[in-house]
């Protein structure tokens, strides 16, 4: 049992840490070694059959407000089993989170649940807390996108961010397309029927399950051969021998035959370089080039990869191999002098690392209060500080200029009492 568990020295209760991802939400208490629950970020409405995704950026405020309210209600009263009013909240967010979503989330937390304070913590920065280091190049491979952000001496180098829509969602789309095109289904009545004739589209949770259980990432040599075979029109390049087929039961009657080649070729979309010659591996190198020259060596030797998509078998090995392969290409050879790349292994699974960082930070009760946005501040100003909003109240309101240095980029603003 950790020493700091339970009521702290001041009697303050442990904070609640929530990582709202587009696919899954990790939530739990500060100071613990893992989240209490990892649940899909969706709610079930009584009249609609399919669950509704909570993290949507394009719906109007009222709908988003009601979805978030219901979802957070479920988090508190089904999984965390505590009163919202008693505990501070730490929200792990991506730096690219739209302001509208952030504002609505804050409104739900303060107005409906009446939490005492909220801290928005950037996921890339928090993952460094799990390692005890100050500088790293952090790559978050999530559902909607892969986002890279270098952090040097505890400050995110915001101008060197990079992102690509290559994540779980892209893999699902490609996998569904391949399944519908190539696979057959044995139903109770007939064998070998093509999949589109049995079902028009495959539900996403089945596609996700197929991806998680059967797909993997091949190593560099094999992967390059697969890509060559795919893009080669005259068929001269030969594909390496595919892995064995898998019989996937869809329900009691139907069995889907997942053909072998799908299993290793679907994930290649993360590493195929399209017309812009970008892939998940080039994200890191491109970001490295943009970084100040004296930081590059340290950043290259401290790579951190987080996110659920990074848990695919063979992903990390392939990523490192790709980086080393690409760094020899003419595009990067001249620009980057550093050739050594090292990667960290955080003390948690990649999908929980950002959460764990937030939990470590949330356990620091001495400063958590001063760095969070309190309920009083929110009720006075009606907004939360955002790194990208220029119409925030000027810093003089929050800090006495001249006495203490104003906070540097992307840091949770504190309220001076």
């Amino acid at each position, binding site marked *: 049992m950790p020493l700091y568990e339970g009521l702290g020295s001041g009697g303050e209760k442990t904070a609640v840490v929530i990582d709202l991802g587009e696919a*899954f939400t990790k939530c739990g208490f500060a100071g613990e*070694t893992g989240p209490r629950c990892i649940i899909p970020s969706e709610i079930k409405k009584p009249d609609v059959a399919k669950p509704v995704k909570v993290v949507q950026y394009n719906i109007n405020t009222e709908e988003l407000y009601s979805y978030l309210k219901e979802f957070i209600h479920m988090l508190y009263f089904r999984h965390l089993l505590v009163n919202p009013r008693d505990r501070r909240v730490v929200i792990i967010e991506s730096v690219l989170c739209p302001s509208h979503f952030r504002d609505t989330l804050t409104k739900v937390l303060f107005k409906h649940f009446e939490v005492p304070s909220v801290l928005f913590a950037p996921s890339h920065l928090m993952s460094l807390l799990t390692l005890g280091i100050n500088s790293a190049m952090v790559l978050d491979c999530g559902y909607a996108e892969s986002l890279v952000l270098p952090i040097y001496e*505890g400050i995110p180098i915001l101008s060197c961010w990079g992102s690509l829509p290559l994540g779980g969602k892209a893999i699902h789309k490609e996998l569904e397309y391949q399944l519908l095109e190539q696979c057959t289904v044995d139903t109770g009545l007939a064998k070998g029927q093509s999949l589109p004739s049995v079902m028009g589209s495959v539900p996403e949770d089945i596609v996700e399950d197929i991806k998680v259980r*059967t797909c993997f990432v091949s190593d560099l040599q094999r992967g390059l051969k697969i890509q060559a075979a795919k893009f080669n029109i005259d068929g001269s390049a030969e594909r390496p021998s595919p892995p064995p087929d898998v019989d996937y039961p869809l329900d009691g009657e139907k069995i889907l035959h997942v053909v072998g080649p799908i299993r290793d070729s679907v994930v290649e979309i993360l590493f195929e370089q399209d017309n812009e010659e970008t892939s998940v591996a080039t994200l890191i190198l491109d970001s490295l080039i943009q970084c100040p020259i004296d930081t590059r060596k340290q950043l290259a030797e401290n790579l951190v990869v987080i996110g659920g998509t990074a848990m695919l078998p*063979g992903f990390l090995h392939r990523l490192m191999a790709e980086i080393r392969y690409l760094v020899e290409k003419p595009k990067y050879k001249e620009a980057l002098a550093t050739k*050594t790349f090292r990667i960290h292994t955080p003390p948690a699974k990649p999908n929980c690392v950002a959460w764990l960082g937030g939990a470590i930070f949330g356990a620091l009760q*001495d400063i958590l209060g001063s760095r969070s946005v309190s309920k009083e501040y929110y009720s006075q100003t009606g907004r939360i500080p955002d790194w990208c909003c220029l119409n925030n109240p000027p810093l003089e309101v929050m800090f006495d200029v001249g006495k203490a240095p104003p906070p540097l980029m992307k840091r949770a603003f504190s309220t001076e009492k």
Partner: protein
Amino acid sequence: MASLLQSERVLYLVRGEKEMRAPLSQLYFCRYCSELRSLECVSHEVDSHYCPSCLENMPSAEAKLKKNRCANCFDCPCCMHTLSTRATSIPAPLPDDPAKTTMKKAYYLACGFCRWTSRDVGMADKSVASGGWQEPENPHTQRINKLVEYYQQLAQKEKIERDRKKLVRRRNYMPLAFSDKYGLGTRLQRQRPGAPISALAGLSLKEGEDQKEIKIEPADAVEEVEPLPEDYYTRPINLTEVTTLRQRLLQPDFQPICASQLYPRHKHLLIKRSLRCRRCEHNLSKPEFNPTSIKFKIQLVAVNYIPEVRIMSIPNLRYMKESQVLLTLTNPVENITHVTLLECEEGDPDNINSTAKVAVPPKELILAGKDAAAEYDELAEPQDFQDDPDVIAFRKANKVGVFIKVTPQKEEGEVTVSFKMKHEFKNLTGLIRPSEEGDHTSGVVWLTHHVELSLGPVLP
């Protein structure tokens, strides 16, 4: 006929932060504010924890210690059903005489739904029925604890500095000679050129302070990551051996890939919720402590205080033709209640949904009190209220049937009417001190509710 009892057809308006319409059965009534409340405008609180399978109450301190999990019950890691403990007898040698064997009881966990057993993951059978099963521990716990200690130390430093700065700021007028009293002064805290930028917002050690510091080894980065084994590409997979995503996510600390590493977890607890009015902070609903009891200590539900309107019969509704609809009004309290139905005025902001005109009886209706013993008391004289037969269809105990005239204004679609219902409410919450003149009318409040009825489609 049963469809007319659908409570969704009669909606009451709740004036909270956001106006909403809900059937009376889903609403609460705050006696102190004398207003209707819905689930959205009350604050929910956790009241008590209990296990859903053994129905055992757990005090909140213990629940926090056990991470909201029951001590006795387990969940199947495959299908999340509750595991049951089964006993077998195995021969075991007697401690005194190794030659003889006696039957000893051995217990194992088994799932009745998917036939998973604890032997599948290699858990040895235990000799005690309960309390012998342990959950595996997270191997990274030590490292994480050390990290938290290290950062707490830095956080403490920052807090001390912050407090010191406040103190220094206030005493700016003090002469410089005293600056040493408050620590190192401002010189050393300024950033020296060449030194690493102190950031992570101050969470890094400053030089020259505090000799007794907890050092931590920063994590080591590795050059090589382990590749997939060679036979991975050719090995056929058995889907029953591979865990699904859902099974993995039930165990966030381990997330095992092989089904042979899926250990069972203790069952998650459920809670009983209590509701509180946001304005006056009084409890609206407080359940009983005992998990097996469904009663409430405090139950301020609206059906116990507000007369309920129900639709009894609807004739054929035709466009622009006046028809009579029969409603029933039920009195929930024990005293006689006077109810007046009023039409909505022109330009009423609440009246947005009505598609028909309604004519309500103009006179005040009297509802008899709810008398629980009335059905057993045969000798009691039925009270004579002198009802107007045009207005009142029937009267039975605390229920009265009322005619209203509805004229649909739209040719097609649903007919919706709304009206206001005014009734008296005896507020017993403040009547503690005895009144000197026998003034019994104190505490009577007249409440008006906006009611909407949906009467079905217009027939051609």
